[in-house]
């Protein structure tokens, strides 16, 4: 019989999110996406497809870009998670965020958190990507609004800002 009204999730597990240690109570097969959104109130990661195709649920897990809708939360135990809320400093946008604002990389915004994380991940692994490499690096993040042109321009602009920043 159904009736999860009678008992709560039995597992306690901890991981780091955006630099802070968090402890949650969850069923081990709860999706990391749902843990982040519902238990931790980090609603920047979105569910667009539930099958790992659209990338709007992307987060960084131990430095790797992953689709959080496909990660059972148990597998995130002791992991280092970064969400869109963890990019940039408080009150200050990072280069990618500034660039997306300047170049029209965000229209409706629903793909934007995942897209920016994917771009951040790309630039971390490959600081000087060609246009082809940018296309490939973002090919797991679907955008229905922009046609991708201004997203690529945003990434290129972010690289310019980074390279011209005084150390």
């Amino acid at each position, binding site marked *: 019989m159904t009736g999860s009204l009678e008992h709560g999730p039995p597992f306690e597990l901890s991981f780091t999110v955006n630099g802070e240690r968090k402890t949650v109570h969850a069923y081990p097969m709860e999706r990391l996406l749902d843990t982040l959104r519902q238990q931790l109130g980090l609603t920047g990661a979105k569910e667009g497809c539930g099958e790992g195709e659209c990338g709007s649920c992307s987060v960084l897990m131990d430095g790797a870009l992953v689709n959080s809708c496909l990660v059972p939360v148990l597998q995130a135990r002791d992991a280092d998670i970064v969400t869109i809320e963890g990019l940039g400093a408080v009150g200050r946008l990072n280069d990618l965020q500034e660039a997306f604002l300047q170049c029209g990389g965000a229209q409706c915004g629903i793909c934007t958190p995942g897209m920016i994380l994917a771009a951040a991940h790309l630039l971390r692994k490959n600081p000087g990507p060609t246009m082809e490499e940018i296309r490939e690096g973002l090919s797991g993040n679907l955008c229905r609004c922009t046609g*991708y042109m201004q997203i690529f321009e945003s990434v290129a602009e972010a690289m310019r800002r980074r390279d011209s920043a005084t150390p």
Partner: protein
Amino acid sequence: MKNDRIVDSRIVGVSVPRKEGRDKVTGQAQYVDDMTLPHLLYGGTVRSRIPRGKIRKITFEPEIAWGEFVIVSAEDIPGKNCVALIVDDQPCLAHEAVNHPEEPILLLAHPDRHLLPKAVAAVSIEYDPLPVVLTIEESERHSEIIWGTDNTFKTYRMEKGDVDAAWEKADYIVEGEYTTGAQEQLYIENNGMIAAFDPQQGITVWGSLQCPYYVHKALMALCNLPADKVRVVQMETGGAFGGKEEYPSMIAAHAALLAMKSGRPVKIIYDRMEDMAATTKRHPSRTRHRTAVSKDGKILGGEIEFAIDGGAYTTLSPVVLSRGAIHAGGAYYWPSVRVSAKAVATNAPPHGAFRGFGAPQSLFALERHMDRIAQVVGLSPIEVRRRNFLKPGQTTTTEQTVREPIDLDKLLDRALELSDYRAKKDHFAKENASGTRRKGMGIAAFLHGAGFTGSGEGYLSSVVGVEGCADGRVRVLVSSTEFGQGTKTVLCQIAAETLGLPYEDVDIAQADTDQVPNSGPTVASRTVMVVGKLVQSAALGIKQTLLGGGLLGGSYSPEEFRAACQKQVGARGPFRSWAHFEAPSDVFWDDEKYRGEAYAAYAWAVYVAEVTVDLTTYSASVNDFVALQEVGKVLHPVLARGQIAGGIAQGIGYTLYEKVVWQDGRMQNGQMTNYIMPTSADLPPIRVFFEELGNVHGAFGAKGIGELPMDGPAPAIINAVEDALKVRFDSIPLLPEDIFEALTAKNEAQVSGGAR
């Protein structure tokens, strides 16, 4: 405001930061599923599994603790069981019969979101199936009547000149039939709604939507509540493209019914499979052209039969039909034409609004047909268009005189130059002689009317407000919604420019029917042009109030304005100025004959596609795309480019990738793995260029541009594919499997000595 050219503009014409952009890039923007309320229940929908039949029996299987669930049926509807729109034929919940797969029958709610799918699956419904109609051809045969007396939601007949005389004079009569398939809007954020009910305050809904007042009207009728007891609030909306024009009324109705019955707030969020299978898609279409052409390639007249598949209920089909019929003659001069248009019923979920709204369908047919005419007459696709382009002073198919100095010839010249058309065509002709790739170039020339058709804007009677606030800032009050296209940004630009204020000093209210007037739906590419112009007027009204009260001089600094506004609010409270739409006196429209000034403004475009067909895999891909359009005035270059590029991407998807696989009226490939939209790796560089002629009817000279880019890609691409392969394709989507079949058939015909 007579000024249709920007002089000394500081903000309009500049790419200012997106008003809500910061929230979007930091993940702070609040979409409906990000919102929660205390004691929230989650809702799910029990839907029909058959395309048509009578409901015989409903069984609630015993494995579910039904006592924990809220259950709503048609009998719980306080008002009218319909989703009020144009014709009230669509039930909110099916009662005795169903007319399409996925038709909603029952609603369930429970505090645990995870229990809904199991519960929905545990409702067993037995049906007595009825015969089914699945295509336009089956519907028009009338062997089974599934709607009204003849399966026909709406017809239009437009006549200009003497078509029958044209046949006599024709040197050629060119015929063609062109078809387009359904297309899923595929906004990345699925449909969702939250509803709350309070016996004193009434119903409030928060959701992903384009038209708060459409939802408002629908809920009033459904819940039997007066206007001030229904409140609709738009949350940040993750893409819409028309897919959230009418459908949100349905899901809002469902959430509202559950909220009313349970006394608790209810959230319904579709997952991707449900959204794809159950909600609206672009109308499939069939267009038949029969054209009288002179020996020098001029159109003398013609008949155009335009038919669209509306699905099971009327919804917006009459309006889609209207726009498709009006655009069926495109950017050419027709001395005479007869357009017969019909929207017919099938047992599929109702088709609905999708960017372009009938025009992509009829313009696909026309622009393919122009290439056909070119072949028959022995002209190039370029030349046949030149000889037929509309010129200022000539009339369109609805006998609207072209009054602006549009020069389509020059637009075409520029597009050909930007795309390097001639050199590429020559080069490809040589290259195509060998190798495994065939390359081709294709063009499309077209127009798109902005705003509601004919008397539509007058009927809407939009109202816009601008408010002076206590802190000296100014706030725009409109029901026009932001869903990526830049509504908030551009309307604030317009107000700021009008008042001489910095962009940062202007805000825009959330689209909440308790706070904003009805400025009409956010559709039909009308927001900047029509609503923006009203924002201008209302902003001037604010200035007038301050000037009239002696708080402001004729010329002033932003600081002075702020101080004056603060003083006014301090003395008299927040003050508002309203602007009401008045139909321009020079817009004449006959609703019966469907003749006259169909749209207040047209944008004009020439698109050029370069395509490669790989003969190893039979796949066609677009390698370069040039989009040149005349749009009145570009108010925000980055946003405008973004709109065009995004629309073209959807157009490329419509043409080469996005196929809805139907079986018995139900979409079979309702997942992102199987419904193929282009990724970043599939799209070419999309090169966007503008020309600006201004527009007296639009804010700062702007015309609507949101839907224009949807019309050109399909015919330009298919024209290019034909150029590459010398095989005719008249149907989209065109998949590699289709190209393979066609090439195989061609080879077999040649091998067996058949027609060359």
